[in-house]
């Protein structure tokens, strides 16, 4: 607590962790490239350098506020420093802005513009380094890297994966997996959070846009799409709409225009997951099976668990993820209904996801049925936005359309899968006897909601006290796993989403200067939930119809993974 003088004005501070936070609170947007409030302070970019009244300079991200400090944030000397720092960064950067996929949303480009850097006085000493596209999810282009270290700290601090670090020194310094290997050969779990914090396009999404465009243009294909819950509340970000608004209707309409023959809602797939996972959970409780049950919706978490906690593999639900369940169901549906279709074109199954790890998931064994890969391509929110921009279809003007039958209806329980706690809330709705508004309210206020990385609460089920943990962020998951393994805590159900606050902050969502806030995206999904007529997955008539029809006797083949242990 105290007061500081910033550029001649008195500013109160309370519990801000550093001077930078006080400056920003005072309404001054000091530029930074390596500072993220969720990550450890690094002090590498030096752009936040400020000056004390004695003329000494300091980086404001790494100094504590103190009562009576007098500082300046924008003296001619400081502006000169910042511009020189940017010039030096640009001297080792490829500066191919016009052909760069982050153009317009790049933080480096934006700062060069803000600080009016019109020329770079230094010789460009960039080395041409190979681009690493070995991972199905993420592409690394070291030529665009400014060594801010955000990706490294995200991977280490928030995700506890530590697949990458800075190697070598000086001009040869590079962000790389161990031993200079490719990302595809590393411990990367494909969550894409490195890409979320990357200020440039040094880390980007492994794009499937061109491949999907080709399939759409092919007269011999029948292209169907499924759209995940978290996409609808973020798709507006890059297309100039209100942040957090649910744009599912517009998205369906524009996908039809782009040439998708059918557009389905992954919320339906999530409903199938609720049915299967709730059944598995109750069965494990009844038969004293392996508990706690871990959710298996998130492929980055599943890979993390397999790699780090192989001894807890049996705790993972055998359910496929919503994407994978739905992918299997869609392909099976077209196997059976081929003759009824107007023509016998080749099915191409595309899923539209907030997630980079989903691109890796479709290649895994549990995403294959009868020897066939269920889903052909995954497009992230960012990629589908790019496709829309490319065609010029005016997203703001297009009239909303409904998703297609027979998989176009989901429940509120399915749609909240996109936010941490959603899977658990939907499963609780499924197993609760009551279906009244009061029953739904009771579940909502059980402790399942909120942005905390680890939420613990108990729920009463037929006389049992069910102990539940809801976790997001893999470092948090690691903490919980260690406690579970040591026997320090006992749970019945643990939901894990790799990305902080869940899929709404997935690695494939819009980032950088355009992105909406976590709170806006969460509010958007909960609002969507309230607007559904059906709240519980088991009340979805199309789900019931599927169980009575195509799924009969084939639940396990289509909806569960058919292998036990990977190793």
């Amino acid at each position, binding site marked *: 607590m105290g007061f500081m003088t910033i550029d001649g004005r008195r500013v109160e501070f309370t519990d801000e962790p550093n001077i930078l936070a006080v400056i920003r609170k005072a309404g001054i947007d000091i530029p930074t490239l390596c500072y993220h409030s969720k990550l450890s302070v690094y002090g590498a970019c030096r752009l936040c350098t400020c000056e004390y009244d004695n003329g000494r300079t300091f980086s404001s991200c790494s100094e504590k506020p103190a009562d009576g400090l007098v500082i300046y944030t924008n003296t001619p000397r400081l502006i000169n420093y910042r511009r020189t720092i940017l010039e030096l960064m640009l001297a080792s950067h490829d500066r191919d802005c016009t052909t760069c996929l982050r153009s317009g949303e790049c933080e480096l480009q934006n700062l060069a513009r803000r600080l009016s850097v019109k020329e770079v006085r230094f010789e460009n000493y960039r080395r041409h380094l190979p681009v690493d596209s070995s991972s199905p999810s993420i592409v690394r282009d070291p030529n665009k890297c400014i060594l801010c270290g955000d990706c490294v700290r995200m991977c*280490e601090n928030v995700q506890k*994966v*530590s*697949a*990458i*670090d*800075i*190697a*070598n*020194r000086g001009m040869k310094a590079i962000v*790389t*997996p*161990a*031993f*200079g290997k490719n990302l595809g050969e*590393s*411990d990367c779990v494909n969550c894409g959070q490195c890409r979320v914090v990357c200020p440039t396009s040094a880390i980007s999404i492994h794009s499937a846009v061109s491949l999907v465009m080709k399939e759409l243009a092919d007269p011999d294909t029948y292209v169907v799409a499924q759209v995940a819950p978290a996409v609808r509340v973020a798709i507006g970000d890059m297309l100039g709409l209100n942040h957090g608004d649910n744009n599912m209707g517009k998205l369906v309409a524009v996908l039809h225009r782009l040439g998708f023959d059918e557009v389905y809602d992954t919320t339906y797939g999530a409903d199938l997951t609720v049915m299967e996972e709730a059944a598995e959970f109750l069965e494990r409780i009844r038969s004293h099976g392996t508990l706690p049950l871990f959710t298996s919706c998130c492929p980055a978490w599943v890979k993390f668990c397999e790699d780090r906690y192989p001894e807890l593999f049996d705790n993972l639900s055998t359910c496929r993820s919503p994407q994978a369940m739905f992918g299997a169901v869609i392909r099976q549906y077209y196997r059976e209904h081929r003759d009824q279709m107007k023509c016998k074109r080749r099915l191409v199954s595309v899923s539209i996801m907030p997630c980079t790890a989903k691109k890796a998931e479709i290649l895994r064994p549990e995403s294959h049925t009868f020897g066939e890969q269920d889903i052909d391509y995954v497009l992230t929110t960012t990629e589908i936005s790019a496709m829309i921009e490319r065609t010029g279809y005016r997203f703001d003007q297009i009239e909303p359309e409904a998703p297609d039958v027979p998989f176009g209806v989901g429940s509120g329980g399915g749609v909240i899968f996109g936010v941490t706690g959603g899977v658990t809330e939907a499963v609780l709705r499924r197993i609760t006897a009551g279906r009244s508004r009061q029953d739904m309210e009771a579940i909502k206020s059980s402790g399942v909601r909120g942005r905390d990385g680890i939420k613990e609460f108990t729920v009463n089920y037929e006389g049992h006290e069910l102990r539940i943990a809801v976790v997001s962020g893999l470092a948090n998951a690691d903490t919980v796993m260690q406690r579970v393994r040591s026997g320090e805590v006992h749970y019945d159900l643990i939901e894990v989403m790799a990305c902080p606050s869940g899929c709404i902050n997935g690695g494939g969502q819009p980032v950088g200067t355009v992105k909406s806030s976590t709170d806006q995206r969460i509010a958007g999904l909960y609002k969507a939930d309230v607007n559904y007529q059906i709240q519980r997955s088991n009340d979805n008539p199309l789900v019931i119809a599927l169980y009575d029809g195509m799924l009969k006797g084939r639940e396990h083949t289509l909806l569960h993974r058919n292998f036990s242990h990977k190793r």
Partner: protein
Amino acid sequence: MAALSEAAVRQIEEICDRYQDTATPLIMILSDIQNEFGYVPPEVQEVVSRKTGISPAKIYGVVTFYSFFSLEPNGKYVIGCCLGTACYVKGAQKVIDRFSQLLGIEPGQTTPDGMFTLDALRCIGACGIAPAVSVNGKVYPKITEADVPGIIEEYRTREAEGGATA
């Protein structure tokens, strides 16, 4: 990558155990390994990672940051050319270039016969005798390009006469 022998793995684990109670043990572990094995290759870093829980990417970052650590075995004679400020202005670049040319290797590399490793050093604190060169710790003062063939010859001759170390 050759697999490590069981004995080597045990030795690395024993080195890791020495620093169990140290808050940040990595550099100590790696320098003991460097001293005892002569280098810290990837397969050794993997063992350290398994034993300490520190990620391979982080260990690789540390090994490649400090010039003291090497990923490959050093030659029998390690020639260090100081390129610190004083040596540099007195012409050390020409000296190291000459070594490079005569040995056919770049700084940081080892000759194919395993005899010489050429290292570029930052200041070794011998500015009064710049440019300075050290071979396995023995310091040669005020070296010029013309002295380089003689130094190489000295060690070649020594090898030919029975290979006593410097």
